[in-house]
């Protein structure tokens, strides 16, 4: 039988990363969806905690008439929220782990994977925080530097070259500088997003050896490892994320469209009837949003697992064995 699929290199092309994740998702849909349902449950629980804390706080205030009751209520709310977010982050990582184990031919059941990751629950919470913190830092620093650079450039044009602000040359060059700065900002942000794209994976599947035995890496080590693995292939990762994102546009539109339309209707119209319809659309839209997230989240987690798997093969040659 002739074969056209001669594969001399054994690594995944950009398109095949995305395709593989779809195949993997389709063939394990029940298991991944089950975890996704559980994760969404924890998301809803965060809302529930707010509601319960509000009710209890209100009740206590009505009885005691003292603002001091806010202290235990806020503490309780904080603990509840932290716990639920940690559980949510862990369930996301469970999907990554399930997919990765599938890729290395050592599949695990949902129960086993969850059991493995329970001790790392707080690690995942810390990791999620750190990544968002780092991304925000990058965004703040980059925007500050770029805004200052554009201002200096503008000042140089107006005062240095003594061009009036109405001069077409001045207008065009300043406009170009602003557009350039904006593009640069997006590039920097996307680049760092890509660096930390697989940050969950090392914590979810790796064991670091040290003299006393084995332990999962810390959240910081996991994030650093993601950057170390991806730093040579940032462009590939960005392309993979772009393709996956574009492919998800239909589902995203379905999920976010109605609530967006509802928002526009509420803010643009003064007519009460229109606003009421807008409100219904918005609430229904939030539900749809959650529903679409339910389906899309596993897809992204699987992509992360595949990117990580492929990168480890590329960088560490784990599959090069007979």
């Amino acid at each position, binding site marked *: *039988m*002739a*074969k*056209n*699929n*001669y*594969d*001399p*290199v*054994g*690594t*995944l*092309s*950009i*398109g*095949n*990363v*995305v*395709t*593989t*994740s*779809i*195949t*993997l998702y389709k063939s394990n849909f029940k298991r991944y969806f089950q975890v996704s349902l559980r994760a969404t449950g924890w998301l809803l629980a965060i809302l529930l905690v707010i509601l319960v804390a509000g009710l209890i706080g209100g009740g206590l205030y009505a009885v005691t008439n003292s603002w001091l009751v806010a202290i235990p209520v806020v503490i309780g709310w904080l603990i509840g929220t932290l716990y639920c977010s940690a559980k949510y982050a862990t369930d996301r990582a469970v999907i990554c782990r399930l997919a990765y184990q599938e890729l290395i031919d050592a599949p695990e059941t949902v129960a086993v994977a969850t059991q493995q990751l329970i001790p790392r629950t707080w690690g995942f919470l810390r990791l999620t925080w750190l990544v968002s913190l780092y991304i925000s830092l990058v965004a703040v620093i980059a925007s500050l530097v770029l805004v200052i650079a554009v201002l200096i450039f503008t000042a140089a044009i107006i005062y240095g070259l003594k061009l009036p602000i109405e001069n077409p040359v001045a207008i065009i060059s300043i406009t170009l500088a602003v557009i350039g700065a904006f593009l640069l900002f997006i590039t920097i942000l996307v680049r760092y997003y890509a660096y930390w794209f697989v940050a969950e994976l090392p914590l979810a599947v790796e064991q670091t050896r040290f003299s006393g035995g084995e332990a999962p890496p810390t959240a910081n080590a996991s994030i650093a490892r993601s950057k170390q693995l991806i730093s*040579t292939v940032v462009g590939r990762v960005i*392309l993979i994320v*772009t*393709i*996956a994102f*574009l*492919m998800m*546009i*239909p589902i995203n539109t379905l999920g976010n469209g109605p609530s967006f339309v509802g928002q526009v209707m509420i803010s643009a119209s003064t007519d009460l009837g229109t606003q009421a319809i807008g409100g219904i659309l918005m609430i229904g839209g939030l539900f749809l949003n959650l529903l679409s997230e339910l389906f899309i989240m596993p897809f992204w987690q699987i992509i992360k697992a595949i990117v990580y798997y492929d990168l480890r093969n*590329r*960088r*560490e*040659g784990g*599959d*090069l*064995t*007979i």
Partner: protein
Amino acid sequence: MKFLNRVKSRTPESVELEFVLAGLGNRTYALIIDYLIWSSILIVILIVWAFLVTQIAWLRSEPIRLWITAIQLLILFGVYIGYFICFETLWRGQTPGKRYVKIRVIREDGRNVGIQQSILRSLLRPIDDILCLGFLFILFSAQEKRLGDWVAGTILIQEGQTVTKQKIEISPAATDVANRIIETGKIAALTPDQFATIRKYLYRYPALAPTARNSVSDRLANQLLERIELADTLPTIDAHLMIEAIYLAYQQQFRE
């Protein structure tokens, strides 16, 4: 890769072929590239047109203007529909995007697509694009066909990577070692699959992280030496050189 869908097809001469289907990832990637090129062509045409009409007064005179508009519409329509038809017919099932991503449209029996198939695919493209119908059809059909593919009887496959494009650098010192291995070892004990792993290793060695190289080379070299029953007899040499030598030895053995 076992996670990519495959399809078997039988040619009119009853030869059975197996193809790896292109997959949604590659198809989306190719489509993005094609739409970028295609829309830039359309934009350039429109800009040139606008420039000509505003600059040349003669083009704005009454009877000529109608003609010019008609010609413009014709050109736009031609590019709009013709881009995919022309490329798929002339490049045997490929467009610039598909060529870059290394996928190809073929008929179900493995033959190249002709102008008929390309036209059918192009005409149904707008319907496939509406509400992402094509996306859903590809997602849920075993042979990953959108409506255009069903009607035209075509499938999209991945093209094999050509080995000649990938260069393997082998150090000159490996030749001597290879000769010794042929004399003393059982190179014939290596299976083609194991040889393929050696080749993968050599392709990918430059991209391995410097810290990982030694452990990968050591592991593979030991496994290979075990296989060809030379584990203890050869003096210890660099593991990477050893693998290169085994690669050469296998090639020489089976070329003769």
